């Protein structure tokens, strides 16, 4: 049951609109209920071939020898694809926004870094024939020591998972193995707090489990182009990733998608499109590459695991005075999107509360497991779990009702957030009040009268003095370059400014540069100021 509380914030809204606010039927509903909505796999192409990959049976191993000679002779096999056949066999997804280093091959060449990593792709007349050929590929593995725990991976002497990041951690700003957040003096505030509570939280990986598995069908089109039917959640992300990996102009491809059987973040990684297109290029025939369910569950990227330590200082009256957080994102064997999740997570600290002293270190760590990716709640889900369990414990500790405790500490309009931007358009207090009302959870009058629009700002708008970190800056690998940090670490930098306001909805559209060839997003906005 859903109720619209039009009485709240009514003065900020124009409710006299004609189409907005109506429960209009979905445009795609008729297609869904008649089964005529067209997903990537609903395209029947003449003479279609099937692609399957040989996956590593080891979590970490050197590949001594890959023998495909028997598989080449197997019935129905049209083409065996090896790493050497992939034009640019090293990529990182966010190279499109110039963030991070290329660290992941499409097909492993000399080493595998997680169980299930693709090594060889087989294109055959039928799925059965592809499976039969897979059984005939012989791979000589030299097993290497593995590491699966994020904190173990950061210890000296831990096995190196991904040589691009030899310390098993993504490098931020060419300087640190973590993203920092510093606001006020958390240690000093902890020393004066009435209570200090330090806790550890953990979230295991989570699989997106869309009912439609990842997949793509690629086919030679007229005039030298390729048409690609895809389950991607990000069409141009896929187009440009394929253009890079296959080293052709992006307008070589005509991608068609848009109707996808669930994604939740699991269809951003562009895993099937490059190999399907390469298969079509090498055979001249339509090629389908679709994940089986076990592949989707075990070797399709999950929401990565996280481990979080929170140390809070709280006063007897319920005010939180300091929050110190250390978080580890388990990226698996390659970067994919976890590096970005860690920055988003740092920005999210300390949750929707105004806390005068906040300290955060967020790590993106490499381990020998399936690379992680984005999922619904990206970078935030586990942190919210940790923060909100912690909030419940703190309320318990000071003997306060948890709803009232949230309202007491909630951020309000005009408050300064830990990432040094003013809080605006906040509504946490009202959500707590309404949820309490719906659940018949009694809260006291003064908390019922609180408002996100009152009592914020003022002293709460100040940026507190923040001591410089006493820790020595770790040495950084020289070759690291990211969007975030183009200046040498020694140069005094201007703090980032509040960006110009976003394009207002009313503004006339700017003419857009034509997208052609190997244009990268980075060439559009990758430069810093």
């Amino acid at each position, binding site marked *: 049951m859903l109720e619209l509380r039009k009485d709240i914030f009514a003065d900020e809204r124009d409710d006299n609109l004609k189409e907005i606010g109506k429960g209009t039927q979905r445009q795609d509903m008729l297609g869904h209920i008649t089964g005529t909505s067209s997903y990537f796999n609903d395209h029947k192409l003449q003479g279609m071939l099937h692609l399957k990959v040989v996956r590593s049976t080891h979590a970490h191993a050197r590949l001594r020898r890959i023998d495909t000679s028997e598989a080449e002779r197997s019935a129905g096999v049209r083409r065996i694809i090896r790493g050497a056949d992939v034009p640019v066999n090293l990529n990182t997804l966010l190279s499109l926004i110039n963030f991070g280093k290329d660290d992941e091959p499409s097909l492993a060449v000399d080493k595998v870094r997680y169980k299930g990593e693709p090594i060889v792709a087989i294109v055959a007349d039928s799925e*059965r024939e592809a499976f039969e050929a*897979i059984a005939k590929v012989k791979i000589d593995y030299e097993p290497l020591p593995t590491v699966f725990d994020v904190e173990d991976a950061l210890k000296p002497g831990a096995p190196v998972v991904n040589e691009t990041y030899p310390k098993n951690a993504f490098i931020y700003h060419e300087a640190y193995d973590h993203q920092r957040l510093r606001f006020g003096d958390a240690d000093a505030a902890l020393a004066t707090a009435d209570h200090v509570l330090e806790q550890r939280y953990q979230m295991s990986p989570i699989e997106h489990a869309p009912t439609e598995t990842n997949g793509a069908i690629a086919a030679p089109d007229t005039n030298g182009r390729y048409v690609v039917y895809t389950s991607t959640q990000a069409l141009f992300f896929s187009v440009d990733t394929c253009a890079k990996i296959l080293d052709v102009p992006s307008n070589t491809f005509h991608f068609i998608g848009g109707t996808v059987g669930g994604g939740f973040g699991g269809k951003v990684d562009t895993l099937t499109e490059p190999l399907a297109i390469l298969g079509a290029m090498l055979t001249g025939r339509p090629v389908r590459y679709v994940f089986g369910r076990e592949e989707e569950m075990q070797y399709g990227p999950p929401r990565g695991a996280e481990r979080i330590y929170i140390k809070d200082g709280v006063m007897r009256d319920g005010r939180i005075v300091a929050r110190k957080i250390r978080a580890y994102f388990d990226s698996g064997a390659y970067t994919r999107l976890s590096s970005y999740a860690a920055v988003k997570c740092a920005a999210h600290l300390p949750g929707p509360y105004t806390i005068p002293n906040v300290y955060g270190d967020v790590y993106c760590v490499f381990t020998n497991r399936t690379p992680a990716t984005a999922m619904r709640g990206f970078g935030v889900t586990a942190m919210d779990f940790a923060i909100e369990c912690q909030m419940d414990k703190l309320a318990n500790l000071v003997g306060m009702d948890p709803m009232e405790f949230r309202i007491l500490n909630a951020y309000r309009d005009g408050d300064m957030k830990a990432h040094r931007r003013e809080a605006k358009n906040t509504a946490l207090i009202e959500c707590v009040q309404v949820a309490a009302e719906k659940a018949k959870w009694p809260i006291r009058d003064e908390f019922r009268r609180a408002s996100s629009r009152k009592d914020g700002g003022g002293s709460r708008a100040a940026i507190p003095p923040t001591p410089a970190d006493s820790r020595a800056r770790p040495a950084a690998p020289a070759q690291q370059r990211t969007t975030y940090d183009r200046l040498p670490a020694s140069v005094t930098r201007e703090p980032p400014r509040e960006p110009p306001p976003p394009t207002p909805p009313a503004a006339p559209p700017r003419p857009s540069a034509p997208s052609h060839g190997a244009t990268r997003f980075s060439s559009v906005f990758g430069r810093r100021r």
Partner: protein
Amino acid sequence: MPVTVKTFASSNEAAAALSSDRTARYLGGGTLVMRALNEGDVSISTVVRASDQALARIDASGPRVTLGAGVTFARILSERELAFLHAPARSIGGPAVRNMGTVGGNLFAPNPYGDFAVALLALDATVAVQGGFGSRDIAIEEFLQSRERQSGTLVLSVSCTRPASADAFRYRKVARIKPKGGSVITLAAHLPISGGRIAGARIALGSMAPTQIRAKAAERALEGRALDAATIAAAASAVTEGTSPSDNALGSAWYRREIVGVHLRRLLSGQE
């Protein structure tokens, strides 16, 4: 090479084809063999079927009940005479799986599947198999223990004696997902009562060992006693004896050992 499908009119011929070809698998309801083919199991190159109507026969008229190996769970649920088997039959799959899955196939289903076989084990069923050397009857306990070696044999039917009363046979599948999920553990208890005392108790457990097993210590705790709280408690505390559960995606060995007694107690005392 595509798979070869061989369909025979008689189960004799099917059994012969099965025993003569190591790459052959018998296709019952499809829930095991078709899945294996879909997932690329290239060890199967021949699929054997039999159109023999005897395989789909149900004989439930007398005290001894015989179910053809090809009888589906949906058919069991449609037979009022088989009410004692409705709970285990209903615990399997969703409606589509029950329309397909068979009694014979369930005997081969590995953990976390094979719930119906737990019920049959508690009921001391007999499995009729057609081997290369003709047909023979095997006690289900022996069949399950030697299941790895049975893949070349064709199961013809399963038979058991009908419990004397509805109360004498109880079944519980513990799953995380409702209404249908994989078994964390499965319990079945046959407790014939004679003169107010249990005579011939059989407790069977699923997911408490590599195959379905009997909880013989719990059976001993029940044997010859009235089904009262003290007896139930004794059986519950003995039920882990001789079990060797494993960790899997649905639960750990530790957890299975912890809860099997709780669920046996609840099952025997009629609690939800």
